[in-house]
């Protein structure tokens, strides 16, 4: 098998040709720039080989923001194509590719890296730890994700993009109907990303279980730590299913097996079954950490302890179990018997109960609070009504009989965008504005932030609200065009206009990052929001070792109580001890590279070459096995010096940023 050489690069499309040139130029530009400014050494020692959870978190976030741009452009292309009837901006094939990559990228290379990035940054700080349980494994997780993202994005300039939807249902995704190699990119790149995510899951479970500082019992953990913990459990319980499903897809497509093909006794819907066994829990993997961030942010800016902390914990645990029991609601229309559809209808509706509990908890947290309307808080406030629309339409879809009407219409598309954008993207933005000062030592501009907020929220509603009505009128998803007689034109155009406003909102965020990096005030102290959890008890940006002496916790909202009870004592010289930290390592980035190369060869079905490249993986593992590096110690003098610097003025001269 394999592919012909003249099909190697995608040719014949001016848009793609322009991107090919653009990518080549920016690569050359980046390499030349780094060389000119002599930054290779800095890049290698400070970032590429780092095992520091904070830097890994920031790299995840960078990856997520870049991928957001890519996925967003895909979305804009879809919206421009369907803006008017019978449009010829994209042909059917190109449209198929664009909606496929939009879905895959937004879920797996935007939502996941951004959330895992924030988890990486904040969770160890919130539990008063100096790093995660396995810092090297953490770096490996990141580099596998980055390598997978690079491989997946390569598809549109080399070899052709996958085009069977982000769900890649068989038989369409099989060799018979998709003979090109596009879908191999899907199977292989997601396999690599999934391996990275699974490692993150294991890492954070152990981190939360074993590395909490003294006094921090499970029921005194900040809510974001709780949700990250539960998310990690769902990752471990569900990602192996996806690993198997993708491997079977590869066996079918590349090695002629018969899992999902119609011939040879395979069952096409078995793919759907496995995909959603993973895919539904995946929704909760992205949404739970977002819920956790909101809980911390709402409690900070309402200046009250989170209402119903225990019921919040019970809800997320319930959600995590129920999330494994609802997968069939994605294919009610398969033609199952009444018992199966009823069972999954009921479990699906049941999951709305703990989610509803959470919504009320957030509302009651704000009740009688002295709310500060920061940008971060605005995102949290906008989340509630928008997410409720997504949730309620979800309950509509959960009724199996009614689902026959909604299935595969734009109503469904509107529903899951109302879940994922308010439920994941809004909280991510809230989290970015909230933790940005902790990451970089300056805040994102609040005024530009409000532009970002209003443009994005209005744009979002204008884009997706019309889709509910279009769907009820019978507009199906994934159709690249429609005739004028359908009457879809006006609402489709409105939706397209909304997407431009949405894009303007994203541009405002990018401009905000640029503006703030250049002009924002650096003198903000360590606690600009008057916050409640431990990450705010140390310097901004956080020093390498996080805490000079590990804090002791007696209550929920530990830092808040420390402030109230004046327990924040200056660090005395004799308290300072040497701190042990892990050394940098080249192995994770090397592993990312060999996984990427081996995966690339496998995509092209050059199986022998892929196998040889995969030997490099085992070489990396062997090096790791023989690596007895003990890490290094930060000296007392250095710690005293660092601590003196940020503690010097206390918060003298710092403006109050939350008024």
């Amino acid at each position, binding site marked *: 098998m394999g592919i012909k050489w003249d099909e190697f690069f995608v040719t014949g499309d001016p848009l793609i040709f322009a991107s090919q040139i653009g990518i080549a130029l920016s690569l050359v530009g980046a390499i030349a720039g780094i060389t000119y400014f002599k930054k290779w050494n800095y890049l290698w020692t400070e970032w590429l080989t780092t095992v520091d959870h904070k830097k890994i978190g920031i790299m995840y976030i960078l990856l997520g923001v870049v991928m957001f741009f890519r996925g967003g452009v895909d979305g804009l292309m879809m919206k421009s194509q369907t803006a008017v009837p019978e449009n010829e901006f994209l042909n059917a094939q190109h449209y198929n590719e664009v909606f496929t990559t939009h879905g895959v990228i937004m879920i797996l290379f935007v939502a996941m890296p951004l959330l895992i990035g924030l988890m990486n940054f904040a969770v160890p700080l919130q539990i008063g730890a*100096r*790093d995660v*349980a*396995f810092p090297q494994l953490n770096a490996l997780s990141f580099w596998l994700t980055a390598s997978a993202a690079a491989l997946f994005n390569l598809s549109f300039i080399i070899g052709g993009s996958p085009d069977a939807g982000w769900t890649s249902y068989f038989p369409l995704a099989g060799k018979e109907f998709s003979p090109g190699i596009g879908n191999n990119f899907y199977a292989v790149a997601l396999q690599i990303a999934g391996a990275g995510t*699974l490692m993150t*899951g*294991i*890492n954070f*479970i*152990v981190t939360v*279980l*074993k*590395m909490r500082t003294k006094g921090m019992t499970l029921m005194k953990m900040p809510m974001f730590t709780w949700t990250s913990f539960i998310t990690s459990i769902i990752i*471990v*319980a*569900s*990602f*192996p*299913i996806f*690993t*198997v*499903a993708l*491997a*079977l897809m590869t*066996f*079918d497509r590349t*090695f*002629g*097996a*018969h*899992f999902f093909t119609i*011939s*040879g*006794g*395979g*069952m096409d819907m*078995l793919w759907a079954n*496995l995909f959603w*066994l993973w895919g539904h829990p995946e929704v909760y993997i992205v949404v739970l950490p977002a819920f956790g961030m909101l809980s911390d942010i709402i409690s900070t800016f309402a200046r009250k302890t989170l209402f119903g902390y225990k019921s919040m914990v019970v809800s997320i645990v319930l959600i995590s179990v129920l999330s494994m029991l609802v997968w069939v609601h994605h294919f009610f229309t398969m033609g199952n018997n009444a018992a199966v559809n009823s069972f999954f209808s009921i479990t699906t509706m049941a999951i709305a109960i703990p989610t509803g509990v959470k919504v009320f908890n957030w509302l009651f947290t704000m009740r009688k609070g002295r709310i500060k309307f920061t940008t971060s808080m605005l995102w949290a406030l906008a989340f509630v009504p928008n997410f409720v629309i997504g949730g309620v339409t979800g309950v509509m879809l959960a009724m199996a009989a009614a689902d026959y009407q909604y299935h595969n219409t734009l109503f469904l598309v509107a529903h899951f965008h109302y879940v994922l954008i308010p439920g994941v993207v809004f909280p991510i933005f809230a989290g970015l504005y909230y933790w940005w000062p902790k990451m970089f030592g300056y805040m994102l501009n609040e005024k530009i932030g409000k532009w970002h907020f209003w443009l994005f929220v209005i744009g979002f509603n204008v884009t997706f609200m019309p889709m509910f009505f279009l769907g009820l009128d019978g507009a199906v998803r994934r159709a690249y065009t429609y005739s004028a007689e359908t009457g879809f034109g006006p609402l489709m155009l409105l939706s397209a206009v909304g997407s431009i406003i949405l894009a303007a909102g994203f541009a405002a965020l990018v401009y905000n990052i640029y503006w703030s990096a250049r002009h924002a005030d650096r003198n903000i102290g360590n606690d600009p929001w008057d916050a409640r959890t431990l990450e705010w008890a140390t310097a901004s940006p956080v020093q390498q070792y996080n805490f000079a002496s590990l804090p002791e916790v007696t209550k929920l909202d530990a830092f808040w109580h420390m402030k109230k009870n004046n327990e924040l004592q200056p660090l005395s010289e004799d308290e300072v001890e040497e701190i*042990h*930290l*892990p050394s940098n390592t080249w192995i994770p980035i090397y592993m990312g590279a060999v996984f990427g190369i081996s995966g690339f060869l496998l995509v092209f079905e050059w199986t022998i070459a892929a196998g040889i490249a995969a030997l490099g993986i*085992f070489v990396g593992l*062997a090096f790791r*096995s*023989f690596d*007895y590096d*003990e*890490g290094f110690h930060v000296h007392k003098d250095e710690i005293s010096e660092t601590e003196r610097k940020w503690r010097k003025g206390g918060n003298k001269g710092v403006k109050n940023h939350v008024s």
Partner: protein
Amino acid sequence: MSAKVNAALPLEYQTEQNRMNILGFWIFLGAEIVLFATLFGVYGVLSERHAGGPGQSDLFIVKDVLIQTFLLLTSSFTMGISIFEMRRSNKKGMLMWLVFTLLLGGGFLFMEIREFINYVHEGATMQTSAFLSSFFVLLGTHGLHVTIGIGWAILLIIQMLQRGLTPVTARKTFIFGLYWHFLDVVWIFIFTFVYLRGLVM
């Protein structure tokens, strides 16, 4: 990253990092359970879809399966003894039992590969039917795990010879032991739900 040592515990539990690694590996085994469960589920759905090709009773040979099972069960036992010797600080005994384990594992692997080659000669390949696709991938995944385990243990034996019994090498060997016992558990389910079920059908 505490390097504090609690000498009252067995070597592999003495440092906090060791305890975290062991817990982490247990969690990983949880993920492995899910992975194999998915393969078993796929096999359960597809096992009666022979597409005109050979079925279970045409292929499986009771005697060979019992020998494979015996080899792997015994290797799990010798692995346990190896860890037992490790806790008595008997490096020599530990290595000896570890080598036995690998030889038994190698014997199992030899039998499995021979079995697969026989099937292919009988015209039963992964491309023949859905049943055989799921059979080969389930068994192959287990066999791949055994193969990786053997390579892993060889690396550990080298380190043990270089460095002797330290908390780090002890922890690594203990974790390898967990892995090996786990593969035995998976095999028991393969033996029961693939071979015995196939022969009863």
